[in-house]
């Protein structure tokens, strides 16, 4: 008897065609026949690390390596309709019980693939057919459960509705019905097999079990008198018992002699149904991970009260805003350390296109710029984004210019390097691009920097694209009606304390002296508050 090797098809292949499942036209990631080729990116994701998207994506797809999800998260969509298609599916899966059901389904499918992949390595024929039967049973249970849950779920998305219809057809097909009935009969028969082993020295005797008394419970009862609630359970960790060797095979063969009919029909079943996993079901299993992975990831932020929302999307860069957004990569670190995450807003209305961020150092300016980029990127993937409410642009590309370490052997010098990189960006950017510049021209005199920055900004203004510019040059914030001034702030009563709030107000360049630190809280009033009455 031969079994096909049924490892997941998507082992590691990120080519375009592989991204969408085409066999039945049923996909929960791509509407119509659209595949990865419609995505905007030409593989240039240099902004990925500047925006810390690499960290975010790595965290999102952690523990889901088997599904090879990275291509999905590396391909923002350019079509508002395609983004909406995903938002709808994602909203359906927001429902925790549905998400749990989908996760259970995936766990089960993973189990099916693991069993099937292992068959080749099993030598005992009754163990092999036993494993095969487990794979079939797991598969059947998973699909039946999933179908029932999907029937109950109030699905609003075209993506999931389509898959539900497909699944129902498949489950009522004769091929599935036969599989199901056969597996159930066999399970029942095998569960009735019971036998005794008498182990003495090197002999094992196998016979039918005939009601001999359980000695363990007798002993437990006798010693129960010493029981104390304060002592924890005594459990020994047994090493996993290698159960697929010749002794087990021999025992199993003898048990088969005790129950010959049961084992004969098991062999027949395995022959008949050797290739049973449906292709569309398998593809769904992978695609739905995109949603589960992302939603599971943002759960931990939501639990801490950090909001996520489904942004409205526009192709025209007007009236772009986000309320209470945050940098996910930073939030991830802060949450792990139990620290508070500060949220920030931005709003570009009317002719406004460019956010110029100034203010004290370590005040959250870079974080703000990263947040702006991350939120747009995630929105274009079709994902909910940090924030309470948002309206964002569908971009054709993101360009970032973050300060780089000076490289040995690069003789151009830092200033020149800055200019070369910015030139490259501006020659490729279009009116639908997003440009994020972080601390440009720090390696020259202020006068030079002002001059160069103005020149660059003028070009950006001409391109009419969306831009965030973090800078120490206050003048840039008042360059044109397209610029908006944002300032990182400190606590009014204690300038040493950063608030990490970036607010919309004129750049004032103020700095404050450090004031008194508060001490031990041992005044009369404070003590009265502190001691519990």
């Amino acid at each position, binding site marked *: 008897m031969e079994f096909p090797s049924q490892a997941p098809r998507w082992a590691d292949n990120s080519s375009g065609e592989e991204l969408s499942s085409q066999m039945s036209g049923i996909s929960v990631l791509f509407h119509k026949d659209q595949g990865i080729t419609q995505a905007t990116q030409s593989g240039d994701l240099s902004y990925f690390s500047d925006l810390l998207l690499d960290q975010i994506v790595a965290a999102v797809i952690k523990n889901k390596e088997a599904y090879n999800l990275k291509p999905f998260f590396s391909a923002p969509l350019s079509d508002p309709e395609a983004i909406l298609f995903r938002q709808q599916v994602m909203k359906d899966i927001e429902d925790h019980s549905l998400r749990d059901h989908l996760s259970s389904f995936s766990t089960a499918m993973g189990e099916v693939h693991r069993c099937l992949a292992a068959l080749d390595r099993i030598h005992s024929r009754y*163990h092999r057919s036993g*494993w095969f*039967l*487990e794979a079939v049973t797991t598969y059947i249970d998973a699909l039946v459960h999933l179908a029932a849950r999907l029937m109950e779920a109030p699905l609003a998305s075209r993506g999931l509705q389509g898959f539900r219809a497909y699944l129902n057809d498949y489950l009522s097909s004769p091929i599935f019905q036969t599989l199901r009935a056969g597996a159930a009969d066999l399970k029942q028969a*095998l569960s009735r*097999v*019971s*036998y*005794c*082993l*008498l*182990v*003495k020295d*090197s*002999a*094992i*005797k*196998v*016979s039918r*079990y*005939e009601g*001999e008394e*359980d*000695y*363990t419970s*007798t*002993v*437990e009862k*006798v*010693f129960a*008198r*010493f029981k*104390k609630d*304060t002592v924890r359970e*005594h459990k*020994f*960790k*047994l090493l996993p*018992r*290698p159960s697929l*060797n*010749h*002794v*087990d095979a021999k*025992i*199993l063969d003898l*048990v088969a*002699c*005790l129950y010959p009919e049961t084992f004969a029909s098991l062999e027949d079943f395995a022959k008949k149904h050797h290739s049973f996993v449906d292709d569309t079901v398998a593809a769904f299993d992978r695609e739905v991970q995109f949603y589960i992975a992302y939603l599971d990831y943002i759960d931990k932020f939501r639990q801490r009260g950090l909001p996520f929302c489904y942004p409205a999307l526009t192709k025209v860069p007007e009236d772009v805003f986000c309320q209470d957004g945050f940098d996910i990569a930073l939030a991830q670190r802060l949450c792990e350390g139990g620290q508070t995450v500060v949220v920030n807003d931005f709003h570009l209305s009317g002719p406004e296109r460019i956010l110029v961020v100034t203010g004290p150092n370590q005040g959250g300016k870079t974080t703000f710029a990263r947040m702006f980029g991350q939120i747009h990127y995630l929105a274009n993937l079709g994902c909910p984004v940090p924030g309470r409410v948002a309206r964002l642009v569908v971009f054709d590309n993101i360009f970032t210019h973050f300060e780089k370490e000076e490289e040995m052997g690069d003789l151009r010098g830092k200033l020149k390097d800055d200019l070369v990189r910015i030139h490259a960006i501006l020659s490729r950017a279009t009116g639908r691009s997003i440009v994020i510049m972080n601390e440009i021209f720090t390696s020259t005199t202020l006068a030079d920097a002002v001059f160069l920055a103005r020149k660059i900004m003028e070009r950006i203004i001409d391109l009419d694209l969306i831009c965030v510019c973090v800078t120490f040059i206050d003048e840039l914030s008042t360059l044109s009606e397209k610029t908006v001034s944002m300032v990182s702030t400190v606590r009014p009563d204690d300038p040493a304390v950063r608030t990490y709030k970036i607010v919309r107000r004129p750049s004032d360049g103020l700095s404050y002296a450090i004031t008194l630190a508060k*001490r*031990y*809280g*041992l*005044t*009369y*009033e404070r*003590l009265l508050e*502190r*001691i*519990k009455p």
Partner: protein
Amino acid sequence: MKVLLMDREQDFDAGAGLADHGEELIQDLALNTLFNAMANGDDFIFSTARSVFLTAHRNSPDTIVYRQNILKDCLRHPTVVRQMYDLAVGLMEGRKRSYWGIFTSYPTSTLSSAVGMLEMYMDYMEKLKNLGDTHARDFVSAGFTRFFTMLRSDLDDTYLVELRRHLRELRFENGVLMSAILGWGNEVTGFTVRKTGEIKGGWWRRWLNQQSPSYTFYIAERDETGAKTIGAIRDRAINPLAEALAQAADHILAFFTTLRTETAFYVGCLNLYERLSRKGEEVCMPVPLPGPARTMRFLSLYDPCLTLTMNEKIIGNDLDGEDRRLFIITGANQGGKSTFLRSIGVSQLMMQCGMFVPALSYTADVCDGIYTHFRRGEDSTIKSGKLDEELGRMNTMADRLTSRSLILFNESFSATNEREGAEIARQIVTALIQRGVKVFFVTHLYPFARDMLTMADQKGLFLRAQRRDDGSRTFRIQEGDPLQTSFGQDVYYEIFGE
């Protein structure tokens, strides 16, 4: 089976709920001297005494009286209690000598060492039971009565015989019979050891010859994998038995561990009692009162730690602090103020442990926390200044204080000028007593003491270390309003002899 000689409801856990500020308490009240006297060279008694003291703040008046009665039994029959302690110690040492504790992944060997261990434990249980059978009628406290009754009913002879029989059977000299089923993927699994029963002529042979179909195979002599697999199957089957026995052994061990800890405390009390009575010092059983009223009344209270380090008897103090919560102690340098303060803390702790106290009589309400804030010497490890350090300690304490706490200050907040120090002390103490905290404060800060005198009215009591007119000290602390001088010049003259 539970010991319950420290508490009506639960076993004493020497590691749980220790006061966070235990080290400060021990240092400030010189408690190690007391623990050493209790231990009399036994390290375990020392550490138990320490744990009992550092959990004393959690005891209710009921628990305190429960222990007092047990302690009275102990004082009447010291030998029996010491024997119980020795039995518990003996079992623990026997355990250390055996291979127990080296749990392997091989239940077969675990089972056999558990069987051996339990046989040894049974010897000790029988000895303990016999001790109870002989002496139970001499003990009257609720704690001991319950304890001996439990031994009689839980360790009856029939039961002990049955235990011994099972321990023999568990050596499985005739092989292991087990049932099994088919598990996941037809795995041979679900082993349950079955009783073979006694059949004349050897059940193994009889079983081989019975009628229902059976198949036997043998592992070849050189087949190591096969032998290991058989061993693993046997291990799986008897693992629950090994666990059950290990569990039983653990339970018995836990019982004796608790017995050792709880009797250690009483043996410690006996040791201390013998030391003090050899010196002719009086002790009494204190009267613990529940809150919320604040009380502190005693006659001839002395510091036991001090007397243990001196040859002569020391002078006790009297106090009648009915319904007072603030005690300001001022007066002569070297007049016995610190000793007085320590004796307050130590006796309060001893009472709350359930012990006798070093006084002729002693009545006080039970506090849920006993704190000390003593002025410390300069510490090179502390970077911050001295006042900073003091405020830091006070800050930590403030997080723990409740309205049922007792706090002893010894010359606190004087590491700055008098006016500032007094102001800090005034704010802190005013808030503390307003919240109901009981405060003893030894101080030289006259402005503070004077402010308290005008403010505290009925809640306060003012005590002063006595000084005769010739400058000599009586070492007695008596009621008296604060004076502007602490007679430091006396000491100066004493040293410089002018």
